[in-house]
């Protein structure tokens, strides 16, 4: 239990699940909690330390997820994920991944994606689910039943409203505005409008001192795509000059677009390696220029290098004989920014066929190792093995006929068995599992890779059912 101090008053600031079960609540006097529960472990609150930790977390998210990240003090982080979710595989995978990543570090987190900052704030705090995504346009429906404490109002306003009998946001928003404003000031109406998206609430992105950022403000708002492209080009030149003085290259550049109606948009361009190549960066940023909605005009463009790495100048080899090795990373960058998955396949130490191919980053070092087997392998593998009906002599003859996807085939030739043992160090259920693989060829020359689960004798090794796993070319 964490205890905060204000003057001589000590109250509970945070509790864990066990303390909650024992009856402690946030906001109750610390002495009362101590009286209720014996053996309570008290920790003094450290607001400054918490703020620092959250800021560090926010900077990590800035590099990881989206260009526009800000602190939602005292206990939250708000991000504008519009236009950045496809890089995380969509909204749900991105948010789940984020919450899981935090949990991996021992942090309890709840996440919500909604149309406005206010509603996301309220939904994340007022519901018990860890990950919630409110579809576009359904914010009003989602927040109606939330308590008024989630409205980001001062605590005395909340208690004052509670005295008047208001419990939920829906009740409050259905009440005439004028008496409320007279009684509690304009704050209530403003927070309600922000939650329902009637009032814009731009997120002021967090920045650190060592972040390289170049910006340009326009006296006249700009809007045409060509003009935007021109200024992006100028910003990239400035950014690269700034990077050059530090000997750094950019891994991730964020373009933030400030519109005249006080809303933000952002574009993010990532690269596989550190670059300081002006045409390449300009091309990456301009490739998604059609996603910018200039509205009534853009008054400021700001370009920040959110992720930088030391960049080594290399002299390009100018040889007449040697074949130039083409660097494909610019191509990969443009794919990556469009959300395509790129990978190379590399051997993994495993005898189980579906496990012995692993995906590695396309720019990872080429190790040159190879699959050890000399047995022919099928060129296409089914995502999961499919059941087939066979007629076969046990224990170690290839099938004489098989029925796959409703078509019966007579097997002319067969090779095998190639025995694959289960990997008990991966899954304990594979302790005794065995697969016998055969390659078989039917009358028309179609070749398949089939296996029997089990060695055909001992039922402990498998069910003796047959599966088709791959197709030979």
């Amino acid at each position, binding site marked *: 239990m964490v205890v905060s101090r204000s003057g001589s008053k000590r109250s509970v600031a945070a509790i864990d699940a066990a303390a909650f079960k024992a009856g402690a609540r946030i906001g109750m006097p610390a002495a009362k909690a101590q009286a209720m529960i014996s053996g309570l472990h008290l920790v003094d609150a450290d607001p400054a330390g918490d703020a620092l930790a959250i800021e560090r977390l926010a900077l990590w998210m800035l590099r990881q997820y989206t260009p526009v990240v800000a602190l939602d003090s005292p206990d939250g982080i708000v991000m504008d994920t519009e236009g950045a979710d496809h890089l995380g595989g969509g909204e749900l995978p991105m948010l789940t991944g984020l919450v899981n990543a935090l949990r991996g570090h021992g942090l309890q987190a709840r996440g919500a994606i909604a149309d406005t900052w206010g509603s996301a704030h309220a939904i994340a705090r007022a519901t018990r689910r860890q990950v919630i995504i409110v579809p576009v346009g359904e914010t009003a429906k989602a927040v109606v039943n939330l308590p008024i404490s989630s409205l980001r109002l001062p605590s005395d306003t909340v208690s004052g409203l509670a005295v008047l009998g208001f419990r939920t946001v829906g009740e409050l928003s259905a009440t005439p505005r004028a008496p409320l404003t007279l009684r509690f000031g304009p704050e209530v109406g403003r927070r309600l409008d922000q939650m329902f998206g009637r009032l814009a609430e731009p997120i002021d992105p967090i920045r650190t001192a060592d972040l390289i950022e170049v910006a340009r403000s326009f006296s006249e708002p700009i809007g045409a795509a060509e003009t935007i492209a021109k200024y992006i080009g100028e910003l990239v030149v400035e950014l690269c000059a700034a990077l050059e003085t530090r000997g750094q290259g950019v891994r991730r550049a964020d373009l933030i677009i400030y519109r005249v109606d006080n809303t933000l948009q952002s574009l993010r361009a990532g690269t596989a390696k550190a670059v300081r190549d002006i045409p390449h960066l300009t091309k990456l940023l301009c490739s998604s220029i059609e996603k910018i909605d200039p509205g009534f005009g853009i008054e400021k463009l700001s370009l920040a290098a959110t992720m930088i790495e030391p960049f080594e100048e290399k002299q390009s080899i100018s040889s007449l004989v040697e074949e130039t090795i083409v660097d494909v990373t610019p*191509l990969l960058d443009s794919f990556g920014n469009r959300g*395509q998955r790129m*990978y190379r*396949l590399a051997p993994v130490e495993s005898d189980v066929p579906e496990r012995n*191919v692993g995906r590695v980053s396309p720019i990872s070092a080429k190790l040159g190792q190879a*699959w050890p087997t000399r047995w*022919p392998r099928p*060129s296409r593998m089914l995502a999961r093995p499919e059941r087939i009906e066979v007629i076969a002599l046990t224990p170690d003859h290839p099938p004489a006929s098989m029925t796959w996807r409703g078509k019966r085939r007579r097997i002319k030739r067969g090779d095998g068995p190639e025995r694959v043992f289960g990997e008990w160090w991966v899954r304990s259920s594979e302790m005794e599992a065995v697969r016998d693989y055969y390659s078989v060829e039917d009358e*028309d020359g179609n070749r398949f890779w089939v296996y029997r689960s089990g060695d055909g004798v001992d039922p402990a090794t498998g069910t003796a059912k047959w599966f088709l796993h791959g197709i030979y*070319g």
Partner: protein
Amino acid sequence: MPITAANPVISELQDRIRRHEGGAARKGEVLSFGIAEIDAKLPGGGLARGALHEVAGGGADAVHGAAAALFVAGIVARTKGDILWCLTRPDLFAPALAQAGLHHDRVIYVEADREEDVLTNFEECLRFGGLGAVVAELVRLPMTASRRLQLAAEASGTIGIALRRWRRPTEAADFGQPTAATTRWRISVLPSEPLPVPGIGRARWLAELIRARAGEAAEFEIGACDATGRISLSPHARDGQDQTRGSRNFG
């Protein structure tokens, strides 16, 4: 003709005509199979680099694309440089490609969720230049798209291979639609080479050259790619059937 060759206007015109015909690829601009019978059927003596080629499987392989993928792997294995392989269904088994001579370090897979993205990626790869080859697994290849791809390949000199693969066998009739591809192949499996002992010998394919720009159609019975990606003309006729089929020309 030395007189016309001396005239720059005429020689340029001749060059242009040759370019339009696509037949006069200069030496080094084709990727030959190393088999005289096949190379003789191809204008320039091999598969033109800087061009789009189309390969599809025949029969059941129109859906699986297993033999067609290996045939393509064998072709691109003989190029130099990185290979980009654009696809939507990640079911290629890399050890098999390695056995066809295509080392896994050379291949970068670009996986997209949508078919249209594959076309876009394919074109972008072809325009990039400097790659060994670009392969894309495509269901649909409209005329306009194929012309764009062909132009992109011509501009960069990269060989592009569209590996056509359909969802259903009935859709394979789409392969009859015209495209701008320079050559068009259909690879069907044949019973493997007989062995003196029980077992499966080297795989054999029927490679049909359905269309070749400025060339003639042909078909060959070939042995599947060896460990360096080379195919061979099949020494055996098909199990006592139809002896006349080998490299007969029906064009």
